[in-house]
């Protein structure tokens, strides 16, 4: 009997018993957000018994095609069961075509194909490319909306609208192309429009880059000296803008209020210290949620029937300082092992009708 078990153990890695998934990570291997994404995925993979392979594109989005080609060129037994990749800079469709040809199913994550011209070439999931299973995206405008709304409320609370003055706000967006960037800004503008007492002076594009934001912010301060609110499309740009504000002898969180997106440790600390007035995050979990989807798909539970092919799920949560503290306590240093990912799987929970990927639930109680 022990002998049989040993033989089993030896055979295990070679067998196709455990599910294998490859993730093409578009970010840099030392970029906090994308590293966190990977960490969450590894935690989910280990809980779901998935063999996970991660390749970083180091923000060279065109490289995705090469990676897809490499995967397609492997011998069949060494190809992954699923590939997770994004559509950064529009290279997704090309990857799908290659992998579909090689018989590898693809789930698009973080960004799908929404652009009409790309759509013409790629079609809808499971149409032209049968193995393009679908896409999972965070509802990005949520992040922009909730952070802007909270930022405006903080501004009002500071009493800057007491004399009937409007709040002067500038926005630092990522870029003009990435859908998530555009959507976040769109949510921000929705909040501004709803507020009525806020003037969005200008929106600029800092490429999600701290140094660039630090360089650009003085221009905006020069141009709009009455600026009170700075909305940023991610945490790094908020920090860059803070640097510029500090060099003008203004105090972030007091003279000028900032909002950011992403749950980086630095951002969580800044939220607790009050330098950041509003922070939203949680979409770093998307990769892990995608593993749950392919896990269920692999076990015969296709998301198509209940969620549709192109899922845009609410994932962002606005963090209070207390929640930030709890997040650090629970998942600090990328420790996501406490999360029981099987709990979110329809295969393991047949009673589950719809997936819930909101982050709030992970802060509520342990595990």
């Amino acid at each position: 009997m022990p002998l049989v078990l040993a033989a089993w153990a030896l055979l295990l890695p070679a067998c196709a018993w455990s599910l294998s998934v490859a993730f093409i990570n578009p970010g840099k291997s030392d970029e906090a957000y994308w590293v966190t994404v990977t960490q969450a995925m590894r935690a989910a993979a280990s809980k779901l018994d998935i063999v996970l392979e991660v390749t970083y594109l180091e923000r060279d989005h065109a490289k995705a095609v090469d990676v897809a080609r490499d995967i397609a060129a492997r011998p069949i037994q060494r190809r992954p069961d699923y590939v997770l990749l994004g559509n950064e800079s529009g290279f997704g469709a090309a990857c799908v075509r290659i992998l579909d040809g090689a018989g590898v199913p693809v789930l698009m994550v973080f960004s799908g194909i929404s652009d009409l011209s790309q759509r013409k070439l790629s079609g809808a999931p499971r149409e032209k490319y049968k193995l393009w299973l679908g896409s999972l995206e965070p509802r990005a405008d949520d992040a922009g909306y909730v952070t802007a709304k909270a930022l405006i409320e903080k501004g009002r609370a500071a009493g800057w609208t007491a004399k009937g003055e409007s709040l002067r706000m500038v926005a630092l967006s990522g870029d003009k192309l990435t859908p998530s960037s555009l959507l976040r800004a769109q949510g921000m503008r929705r909040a501004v429009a709803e507020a009525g007492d806020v003037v969005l002076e200008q929106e600029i594009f800092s490429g999600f880059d701290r140094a660039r934001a630090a360089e650009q912010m003085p221009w905006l301060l020069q141009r709009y000296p009455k600026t009170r609110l700075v909305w940023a499309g991610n945490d790094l740009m908020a920090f860059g803008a803070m640097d510029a504000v500090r060099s003008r002898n203004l105090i972030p969180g007091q003279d000028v209020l900032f909002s950011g997106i992403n749950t980086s440790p630095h951002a969580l600390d800044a939220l607790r210290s009050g330098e950041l007035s509003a922070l939203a995050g949680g979409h770093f979990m998307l990769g892990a949620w995608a593993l749950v989807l392919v896990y269920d798909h692999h076990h015969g539970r296709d998301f198509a029937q209940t969620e549709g092919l192109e899922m845009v799920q609410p994932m962002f949560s606005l963090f209070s300082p207390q929640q930030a503290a709890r997040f650090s306590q629970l998942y600090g240093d990328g420790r996501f092992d406490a999360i029981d990912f099987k709990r979110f799987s329809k295969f393991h929970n047949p009673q589950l009708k719809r997936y819930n990927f909101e982050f709030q639930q992970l802060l509520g109680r342990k595990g």
Partner: protein
Amino acid sequence: MQEQAVQSVANKLIKRISVYCVASVLAIGVVEGWYSWRHHSKEFDQGLKLIAESQLPLLAISVWEAEPLVIQRQLVQISQQPAIGYVRLRADIGAVFEVGDTALHDHPNARIFNLAQPYDREISLGTLELAPDPSVLYYEVGRSVVVAMLGYGILCLLIIVLLKREVERPLRQILEYVGASPDRRNSQSLVVARGQDHRKDEIDIVVEGFQSMHKEIDKQMRELDAEVANRTNALQSAMESIQQLSIMDPLTGCYNRRLFNERIMQEAERADRYQRALTLVFADIDFFKRVNDTHGHLVGDQALCHVSTIMRRETRESVDWVVRYGGEEFLLVLPETDQEQAIGTAERVRAAIAAEPLLVRGQTIALSCSFGVAQYQPDESHVAWLERVDKCLYAAKQTGRNRVCAWENRDIQI
């Protein structure tokens, strides 16, 4: 003839054309430079405007979106246009970006453009100053000036070369011909080398005129030379006959007394010098007066001719000479002949005369001569010598005529 400095028409033309050409080239250069300067300045200005118009919207967006790196990159791109020397952007927030040669920022042709806010053109985001790169302008102007001047310069050079070839050289050849020595000019005709495909022109006509003139002169010279030769020959013979006449006796053809007087001295001198014998024979026709009186003077003349002919016949033709001394007297001068030999000669002559009577109208007239013979004695005057021979003749006459009497007979006294 007075030498006068001659100026070549062709050289004068060439010099003038050169001067005018240089002046024209300079003038054209100036005009071309001025025009090119204006043209290129305008072009530059339009170029600046065009560049500005194409670049301003992008720049405005970059300024509006606070993108210093992008702005810098765009300015570098603008400054790389060949016409642009310097670019400066002043942003609304006080930042200044400069690219290019900063020494150009006060250039008079620099242009300043307003950067309008992309969404509200009323708001200025700053200014863009573009200064042209003058070196490009200088280069363009210099190039057009050099090309224009080069073109006209080559044209002028061609004209000069053609003038030199077509006018100056043939004229110089004509001039050299005219200025050459008359000998050379007479000996050779004028030849002017012209090009192979050359068509006849005025110079050729002048050359042909020279050539036909030369031919004419040559012909006349030849005729003249022939005429002179003829005349000289005629004169020569005339002179010779005059000479003949002056030394000859016209009736008998013997030498006359004048010649004898002249030449006997030379003969005597020669005899002295070479110690040679020289003998004189004095002959006189006997009873000649009777012949004249009987038969008339004409027959007398015939008798004289008859006697002289025999005398010449019987003496050595080129050595001895026969002189009619006067009336019926003859002298035979016998060089290289001593008295004995002379006696023989005189004897022979006497015998011939005596044997050959004169024939006149079928009638014979017997003639005879008497002879005196005397050899020349060294350092003797010819008068004394003649006297001696005359004495011998007298002796022959006295002793019966038709005989020869020689001097050695010392008995004969005067």
